[in-house]
């Protein structure tokens, strides 16, 4: 069962009389990489800063581990925010990473051990005695992450980590974040407007637009691509399903299928769609995105029973009535290989 580390309710933040953030309800799940995706000015940085209380809460409520952050400051020692363009303190890399540890009363030996560990996690062994002013942009970014991770926080809040790095360094940041999650097991909340990065890194994607959370519109499947003799690339999901995708070069870890790309039918039918799955209706909800639209969550069935994979499809309300779609009913889902986007 997923536990919420942060809950946000009725949050509203205004700046110069204009509302920059308005969120009715949003939860962040413990231990997952959650990505806030949105264009510039969509409120991503404001939300991250509010989660770390670097901005004052104007209205609404944010709880961390069940406690309101405006009433209880225990979140402060367990969460850390890293700026889009991080600023290092003057002195050495060691001084920077040791700063948070010194504030927490770590001994000299503990500090040295933690600094060495975090520098190794971020791939900067041997940098401890370098001056902070003698580092490149990418190195500053990694030192800032090391500084944040040194005291083993429960939540790492990262603001636009890829905004000022080249494509090669985006890949490095991705592996660094995955290594951090594996080493420390912490929750990572990232803001970005880099779509491929967001899909590749996320366990969960949250779209922000004009300060509001936009309803999810796509299924994101985790897995890996496998080359076959067929004219398609095969994507093997973590739940051992094969999804046919367009044949493109590279290795991918996420397959994305829009809700509106999936067809529902009572029985299998012959078509040009390469992907066809049998599933059971798990939940029917009114689509938050448009009038008279319904989101149908389907649990995909293996030949030996239910699997852990679910797919959501968006259909019209009349279609729900016409095909008598109700919870528990078995149906077929079909979509074309070209409807699958790989990241």
């Amino acid at each position, binding site marked *: 069962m997923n536990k919420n580390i942060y809950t946000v309710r009725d949050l509203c933040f205004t700046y110069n009389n204009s509302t920059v953030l308005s969120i009715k309800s949003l939860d962040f799940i413990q231990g997952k990489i959650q990505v806030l995706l949105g264009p510039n000015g969509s409120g991503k940085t404001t939300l991250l*800063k509010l989660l*770390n209380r*670097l901005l004052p809460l104007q209205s609404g409520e944010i709880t961390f581990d069940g406690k309101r952050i405006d009433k209880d400051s225990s979140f*402060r*020692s367990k*969460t*850390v*925010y890293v*700026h889009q*363009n*991080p*600023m290092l*303190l*003057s002195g050495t890399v060691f001084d920077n990473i040791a*700063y*948070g540890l010194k*504030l*927490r009363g770590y001994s000299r030996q503990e500090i040295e051990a933690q600094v060495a560990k975090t520098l190794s996690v971020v791939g900067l062994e041997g940098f401890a005695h370098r001056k902070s*002013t003698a580092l490149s942009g990418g190195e500053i970014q990694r030192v800032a992450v090391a*500084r*944040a991770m040194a*005291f083993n926080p429960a939540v790492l809040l990262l603001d636009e980590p890829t905004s000022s790095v080249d494509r090669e360094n985006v890949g490095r940041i991705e592996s660094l974040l995955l290594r951090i999650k594996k080493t420390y097991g912490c929750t990572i909340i990232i803001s970005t407007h880099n779509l491929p990065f967001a899909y590749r890194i996320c366990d969960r994607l949250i779209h922000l637009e004009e300060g509001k959370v936009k309803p999810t519109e796509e299924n994101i499947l985790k897995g890996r691509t496998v080359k076959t003799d067929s004219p398609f690339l095969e994507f093997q999901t973590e739940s051992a399903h094969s999804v046919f995708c367009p044949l493109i070069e590279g290795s991918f870890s996420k397959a994305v299928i829009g809700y509106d790309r999936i067809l529902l039918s009572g029985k299998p039918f012959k078509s040009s769609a390469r992907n066809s799955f049998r599933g059971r209706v798990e939940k029917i909800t009114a689509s938050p995105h448009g009038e008279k639209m319904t989101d149908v969550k389907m649990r995909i069935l293996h030949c030996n029973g239910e699997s852990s994979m679910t797919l959501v499809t968006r259909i019209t309300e009349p279609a729900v009535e016409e095909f008598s779609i109700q919870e528990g009913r078995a149906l077929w889902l079909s979509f074309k290989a070209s409807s699958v986007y790989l990241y």
Partner: protein
Amino acid sequence: MENSFTEAFRLIFSGDREVFFIVFTSLRFSLISTAIASLFSIPLGTFIHFSSFPFKRGVGALLNALMALPTVVVGLLVFSFISRSGPFGNLNLLFTPAAVIIGQVILSFPILTSLIYSGLSKIDSRFHETLITLGAKKKDVIKASVIEARFIIISAVMAGFGRVIGEVGVSMMLGGNIRWYTRTMTTTISLETSKGDFELGLSLGIILMIIALAVNAVVHALVKNNE
């Protein structure tokens, strides 16, 4: 004029006792007054920056305005307090080194406070946010900010020192330009020039310029080395 320059250099390099006494007196007054002013202005500038109170902006504007305080006005003000008929007349401070130092402290205090306050305000907001997110309490933030702004503070102190070593109004009105006692470089320059004796005035002027340049060079080197 050429003779004046030759005589000025002769005075500097001959080790003239009076010239060196005057230079030493000037440095002594300026260093002591700058140190005393720093002692109060560094904490005050930091306090103003880190605290919220009504009319904070007004205080900032007032400090800025006081930076241009005329030296003769300060001299006059202190004079009215320490002259025989003034409220502190019984302390017999007038025409003593203490009087000059008091005047110079009043002169440099707003400069130092204002420059330190505005210097701290210019620290990138990410700096404070970084400290807070790493778990710093307010006292830690203040300590780290002062350390981070140390070169701004040093520059402010040097600006204050520059102001007092070059002033003449306070030293003249409160020190009285007494030979072998309160005579400073600026009061000597003023006196000797009015007498038409350029040599001593010029030699002291050259020394004053050398001191000003040396102080700037030291600050520049200090900042450069630590960048």
